[in-house]
């Protein structure tokens, strides 16, 4: 009796699988078509002569930008862990005046539309010589990534019993010794969540990247892909291949570390 009632649910579940996957079919199917086969109305037909032409072309145009994206996301993710764990720890274990208000002010920073800080940001980066440089983009992402990384660490540390710290302090450690020797070693799960979260969101960012990096040689992949796709002369097999190249790193992270990705996702709604 039980399996009978589940049949319609399976049908719907599979139907939605098709809805969710058909754009991916379009993407993959067309990225492996050779130039000669890219003709009107053939977008939906399966590739008859799979070829790597599109990928070669896309890679020759986007290879450098792919590298730039890695040079961007790696330092940002690592620094987000360092700063996020420190600030998150302070707000989870220390009570001081206005700590709640300060924390709310930090968190608000992750909801603001970044348009509202862009003009001053560009002026400031210009003044300190970081405008138009990858390092400027790195600094920007580290700063505006502080709220979410802090939130994730604070929610995790709030669940760690105070006794664990106090036990360490009775043994003669200072609070900060206990932080380094007791808390950091058990922070691995949240470090992974923050790492993946920042990796994905900085990789996928477009607004900061398009405003701060103007030179094509230093642009991250999202901006380069947009430029590639915006050009009318580029055939769509190359555009699709380019989109796939830009998507693959975050897709790989998602497929293999999806559990942590979802955890990060759910903590984005403030309450951990």
């Amino acid at each position: 009796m039980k399996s009978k009632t589940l049949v319609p649910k399976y049908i719907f579940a599979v139907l939605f699988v098709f809805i969710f996957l058909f754009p991916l079919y379009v993407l993959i199917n067309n990225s492996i078509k050779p130039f000669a086969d890219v003709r009107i109305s053939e977008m939906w037909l399966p590739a008859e002569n799979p070829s790597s032409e599109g990928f070669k072309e896309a890679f020759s145009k986007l290879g450098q930008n792919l590298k730039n994206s890695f040079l961007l996301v790696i330092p940002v993710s690592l620094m987000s862990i360092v700063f996020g764990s420190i600030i998150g720890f302070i707000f989870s274990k220390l009570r001081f005046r206005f700590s709640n208000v300060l924390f709310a002010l930090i968190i608000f920073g992750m909801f603001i539309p970044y348009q509202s800080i862009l003009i001053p940001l560009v002026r400031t980066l210009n003044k300190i010589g970081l405008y138009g440089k990858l390092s400027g983009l790195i600094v920007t992402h580290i700063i505006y990534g502080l709220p979410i990384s802090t939130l994730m660490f604070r929610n995790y540390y709030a669940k760690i019993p105070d006794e664990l710290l106090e036990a360490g302090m009775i043994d003669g450690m200072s609070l900060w010794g206990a932080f380094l020797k007791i808390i950091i070693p058990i922070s691995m799960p949240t470090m992974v969540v923050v790492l993946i979260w920042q990796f994905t969101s900085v990789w996928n960012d477009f607004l900061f990247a398009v405003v701060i990096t103007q030179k094509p040689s230093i642009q991250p992949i999202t901006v380069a892909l947009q430029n590639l796709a915006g050009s009318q002369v580029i055939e769509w097999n190359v555009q699709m291949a380019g989109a796939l190249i830009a998507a693959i790193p975050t897709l790989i992270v998602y497929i293999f570390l999806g559990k942590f990705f979802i955890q990060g996702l759910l903590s984005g709604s403030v309450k951990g």
Partner: protein
Amino acid sequence: MYCPKKDIKIGLIILFPLLAILFLFVYGFIAWSLRVSFTDWNGIIPNMDWVGFENYRYLFQSQRFQTDLRNTFYFTLFFIIICIVGGFFLSYLLYAKLKAESLFRTIYLFPLSLSFVVTGVLWRWIFNPEIGLNALLQMIGFKAEFGWFTSTYSIGGFNVALSSLIIAASWQYMGYTMAMFLAGLRSIPDQLIESAKIDGAGEWRIIRSIILPIIKPITFSAMIVLGHVSLKIFDLAYAMTGKGPAFVTDFPGLFMFETTFRGNHYSEGAAISVIMLLLIAVVIVPYLVSTFRSEDV
């Protein structure tokens, strides 16, 4: 917890510079943008002459900004409804403990790991009036000639062209609400459902009387998160459609970017960004206040 004064002091000394930088980059810059929005800065060289609310008056009178606000309203409305209803439906399917649940979940959620730029490039081709869905429909015998995102047709202020963007954005975010709802559904004790079944409650009755009340706060959180995504929407529209004919697919974020960084109308761009911030603050501030107030207890 107990903590020596000295350790607290060290904490505050570490905290201070970090927060100073963050608050400068958030609140200092917002104040700076606000100041710019009251000026007449329309060129490469900053001009901080005070003009009062002139930029705001201009914006609210301009066709483009009026269209942007309408587009934002309809986009937000449909995006939230589709993601909540669809996401709940998906989570309810998976709640039945289907075999291969994790495979289904992985597939429904994967678009969320993509960049809006990738989504935009991809869906622009899918909705391309010549070779996209229209061609597919024609292949199976329909006479499809929809304009999709190039359509300038409008129903009661709703630009039909927006539907393409709404579909693409919902495709990307529906898995998110699904994940939130599923986490909520899984927190319902099995005994509660079982005992309701023993009492003779049917599936609808269980949904109405047990499931919906429990997931109500989750729905609220989801609306906040989706709402702030859609109020900020920029990348997707930029990559997929651009502002469109007669601004049918334009949004404040796009307008701000173009007028500021392509047109050098800094004061106008700043005014748009301040309005965007206010729109989001109306949604987010009460949410944060209620969250942190309840945490204090």
